[in-house]
């Protein structure tokens, strides 16, 4: 069946998604650590926007629908941000990975830390 005009954006979006998928796999070999995570998340976000605006037709949706979509991500941001506000500023021993005991506790009642 021939592709009508209205379907062309869909195929282009799919092409873009495949390119981004290849890019994110490639980048994962190049970058690592925080930078790698940021690159991966940036690519994932662009993929998400492609899917939302082209496949889910957000570009032609009424404002109330866009409003709902924004609210979801804003609230997710609230949750992550405020929780991290706690975990990143504790500073007792930095993160537990560096200081926690390497022995498996023998009992569940009491946990001893080495330092």
């Amino acid at each position, binding site marked *: 069946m021939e592709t009508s005009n209205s379907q062309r954006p869909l195929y282009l979006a799919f092409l873009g998604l495949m390119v981004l998928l290849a890019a994110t796999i490639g980048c994962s070999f190049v970058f690592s650590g925080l930078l790698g995570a940021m690159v991966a998340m940036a690519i994932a976000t662009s993929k998400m926007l492609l899917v939302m605006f082209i496949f889910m037709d957000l570009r032609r949706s009424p404002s109330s629908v866009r409003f709902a979509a924004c609210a979801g991500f804003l609230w997710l941001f609230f949750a992550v941000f405020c929780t991290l506000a*706690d975990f990143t500023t504790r500073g007792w021993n930095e993160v537990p990975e560096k200081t926690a005991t390497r022995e498996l506790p023998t009992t569940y009642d009491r946990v001893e830390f080495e330092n």
Partner: protein
Amino acid sequence: MTGGLFTLGVIIIGGVDTGWTFYTPYSSTYANTWVILAATGIFINGFSSIATGLNFIVSIHLLRAPGLTWFRLPMFVWTTYATSLIMVLATPVLAVTLGLVAVERIFGGGIFDPAIGGDPLLFQHLFWFYSHPAVYIMILPGMGVVSEIVPCFARKPLFGYGFVAMSGLAIAALGFLVWGHHMFVSGQSIYAGLLFSFLSMLVAIPSAVKVFNWTATLYKGTIFLKTPMLYAMGFIGLFTIGGLTGISLASIGFDMHVHDTYFIVAHFHYIMVGGMVMAFLGGVHFWWPKMTGAIYSEWWGRVSALIVFLGFNLAFFPQFILGYLGNPRRYHAYAEGFQVFHIMSTLGASILGIGYLLPLGYLLWSLKYGRRASRNPWQATGLEWTTPSPPPTHNFGETPTVTGPAYDYPPAHRELVIGEGEPEKN
């Protein structure tokens, strides 16, 4: 219903010993009771709140009557909208948290178990992300009811309509950013505590906007002290006390002092009982003629409103003092010096109980023996008062068109006569 059955079933077959907060790692590792079953019940209830919230949001957005623009909506609808937003945005997080607790109990991973690397505070974060906004789920509809009652019995438009509407939304939104104030002494970072403390105090702003606007509505109004109005004024006073103690609790130093004492109990009850239950009773008395078509005894109504107000204050005000003096909550015993306050509190609770039983009596009585209400017994504005009392199954014969703002009260009458009428045939 199904969720309720699960939870009730759990109480019958053995109960849950985790307290209402399900704090980990006790609930996830040690408790030997029916945690998963109770969690299932809560999970199912969560689905129903999500569905309810979704229904309200979509209906309010898309199914308003012609002419009923956003800023002509009754305030009760605005607060219902804010409440639904909270239900939709907060409940899923609680659901997934309980799911993780269940996973940990079944498979024994360490999500919340500090002994094997997990972090119990993560549970508290996720839990309070739902459970703090949940108290706004309870209070916001009460604020809406009061915003309906006050203009009606002051015979004036609601002062600052836009601000009251927006402050409801502001409370709903800010309510998501303050959950850490339940965790000041739990071992979270002091910097996070500072952030949450600051944000918690911000909630006072929209709350105060509401209180001041209700007061300004009363100013130079023609006030009729009918039963719903008595409850509404009780709400304004008690909510103010509860709100102001809330600000002091939001400051970390003071919270350290009164944490887990009767002070918290008193604060919570001033908002929930003094606020929400008063508003609920006010709403019941306001819409009772509409819901049932019966007019209750105004004299008994006023008496019980006064009894509730007095009993409530006697029951919970001493608890502020008790808590400040250091009486912890959730203990079955207390120091001897606290006895006077405890006796006052118990006495007040008994009076409060009488105040709650009275409406049950005279409201039921009115169903059979009360006079019949007209379409609009309070001469109130709002679409619901244009249908017969009680409303027929199809509320409106044809879709009504709204032409004016809400609370478009005419210049005051000298008297507010409770409208009576014959039951109408549809």
